[in-house]
């Protein structure tokens, strides 16, 4: 006869083993089911890249409607409201008391306060009144509408070209003709044109509503790139018919992130690329097609304002050379479930090094950031020297005027001021502190310093009379 206690022990041991086996089986089953559900979800996601909830047409400009078909892209697009600093760029949210004229309760930091030399450079121009760090796409229309520059000067409707979604308004105004609408809005006063637009840049400005293919909708770029390609030996270039998909990933950004001016009394927005896209070629264009943005208040020089020439600077850099487009770094691919989409939260790659840089550059984030900032630090140092040189030249011309030096003798130094100032501003206004093309930025600044100092030398009395 077996001992009853022993048999009880054995049976309780057996029960424990069975329990343990059941628990283990349950646990593994749990894991397998989780895996199964996960695989199922990914397969479902991969089946349909998007669901057509609304029928999009070429007349729907509201991005919220587009967002119903493309919620992931739309969510990211809305995040351009973020304000985050990088070492040399990015905006900081600065609170302000709203007024009747300017209802904004948050703005970006003032660049004029950060560097008062800018006021000297822009003396007599609206930018000397108010110039702040650029904010994200979401603010482009408000920041343009409420800047103090609107109060010190009368701006034309041309500005809408890049501060609002104009594709639908242009076509409405032109009776279906984009270019006619563009020409009409250019000639309106700013605030009259402002009533015709509703959104900051929207889906329709870069995408075809049916195929979602990238497309250029801005007349300024359509005409600008045609002029540039003609200069390079390809006349009659139609960007929407001829550009590759990868080119388009830069061209849609180049619709606005470029140097421009308002040509003639019709205030036609023009990209000065008919001689080429480098700063010297642009300057040469402005010599051959005489244009100045304003007359400098302190020196009387006919000067130019450079405007955010990101596209031009990028085109001179190693990334452009390697076929890397704007969107590759500023809207890098990101994975959401089984889908691969472009991150529509357009921002500085420095805020997203992982996706923006490390796809190609397999180094630690800290290392990559240090490399970028080393480049920028050098460019920023040169920029400060160029700024000092320019301010010194402006001071010298001002003194010479006060001494009664005739205009004929000031023509040379003024011309040098115009060159030095445009070249400096070309790097200063460009939103990468030189990163888009570090060597080119360095060259431009070095030449700017040289022109400023040449201007000062020209004002010195000839050696014999000393």
């Amino acid at each position, binding site marked *: 006869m077996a001992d009853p206690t022993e048999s009880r022990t054995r*049976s309780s041991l057996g*029960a424990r083993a*069975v*329990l343990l*086996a*059941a628990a283990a*089986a*349950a646990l*593994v*089953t749990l*894991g*397998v*089911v*989780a*895996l*199964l559900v*996960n*695989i*199922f979800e*990914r397969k479902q*996601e*991969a089946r349909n890249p998007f669901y057509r909830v609304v029928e999009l047409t070429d007349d729907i400009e509201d991005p919220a409607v587009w967002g119903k078909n493309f919620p992931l892209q739309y969510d990211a697009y809305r995040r351009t409201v973020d304000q985050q600093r990088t070492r040399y760029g990015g905006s900081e949210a600065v609170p302000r008391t709203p007024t009747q004229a300017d209802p904004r309760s948050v703005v970006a930091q003032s660049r004029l306060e950060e560097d008062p030399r800018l006021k000297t450079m822009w003396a007599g121009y609206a930018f000397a009144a108010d110039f702040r760090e650029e904010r994200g796409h979401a603010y482009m229309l408000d920041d343009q509408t409420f800047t103090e520059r609107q109060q010190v000067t009368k701006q034309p409707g041309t500005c809408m070209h890049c501060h609002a979604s104009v594709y639908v308004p242009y076509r409405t105004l032109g009776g279906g003709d984009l270019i006619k609408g563009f020409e009409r809005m250019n000639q309106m006063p700013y605030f009259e044109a402002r009533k015709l637009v509703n959104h900051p840049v929207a889906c329709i400005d870069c995408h075809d509503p049916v195929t979602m293919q990238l497309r250029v909708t801005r007349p300024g770029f359509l005409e600008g790139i045609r002029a540039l390609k003609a200069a390079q030996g390809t006349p009659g270039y139609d960007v929407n018919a001829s550009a590759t998909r990868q080119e388009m990933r830069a061209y849609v950004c180049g619709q606005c992130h470029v140097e421009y001016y308002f040509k003639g009394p019709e205030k036609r927005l023009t990209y000065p690329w008919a001689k080429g896209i480098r700063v010297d070629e642009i300057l040469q264009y402005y010599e051959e097609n005489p244009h100045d943005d304003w007359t400098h208040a302190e020196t009387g020089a006919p000067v130019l304002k450079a405007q955010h020439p990101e596209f031009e600077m990028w085109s001179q850099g190693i990334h452009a050379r390697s076929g890397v487009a704007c969107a590759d770094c500023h809207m890098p691919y990101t*994975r959401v479930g*089984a889908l*691969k989409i472009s991150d529509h939260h357009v921002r500085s790659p420095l805020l997203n090094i*992982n*996706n923006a840089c*490390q*796809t190609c550059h*397999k180094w630690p984030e800290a290392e990559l950031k240090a490399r970028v900032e080393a480049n920028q630090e050098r460019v920023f140092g040169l920029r400060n020297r160029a700024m000092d040189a320019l301010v010194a030249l402006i001071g010298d011309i001002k003194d010479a005027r006060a001494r009664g030096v005739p205009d004929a003798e000031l023509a040379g130094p003024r011309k040098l001021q115009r060159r030095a100032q445009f070249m400096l501003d070309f790097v200063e206004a460009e939103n990468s502190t030189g990163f888009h093309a570090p060597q080119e930025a360095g060259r431009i600044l070095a030449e700017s310093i040289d022109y400023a100092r040449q201007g000062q030398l020209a004002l010195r009395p000839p050696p014999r009379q000393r």
Partner: protein
Amino acid sequence: MRFLPIAAAASLGVLIAVGGYTFIYAKGYSYVTNDPAACANCHVMENHYRAWVKSSHRAVAVCNDCHTPPGLVPKYTVKAINGFNHSFAFTTGRFPEPLRITRMNFDVTEKACRKCHQEMVEAIESPVGEKNRLSCIRCHSTVGHLE
């Protein structure tokens, strides 16, 4: 008491059934093959697969040639370890992006280069010794697949 073994057996049965179904649904059998398309079953590998199709090695090496060691047992051991790790990582969502190769898999690929290029590599490596060996992909990072 008496129901316990039945419960355990039932739960094991459920595991086998669900496991078997998952195995078939997820094309588990394809992982036993050498077909590179199997590696892209999982959507995360799609870009690597497409990049391999365009790479210089597409005609001479499939995924398994570089990412598994030679020999039947080592090969399937590495496959099993990776299979478990990948299932776990993708189910829990705990993995870094861009993806980074683990130490074990890195060593496998480094050895794989030498399987074919031993003669040339020996001339480079014999003077520096085992300890100071260079990594092939430090320079040739795009030979297998760009991404």
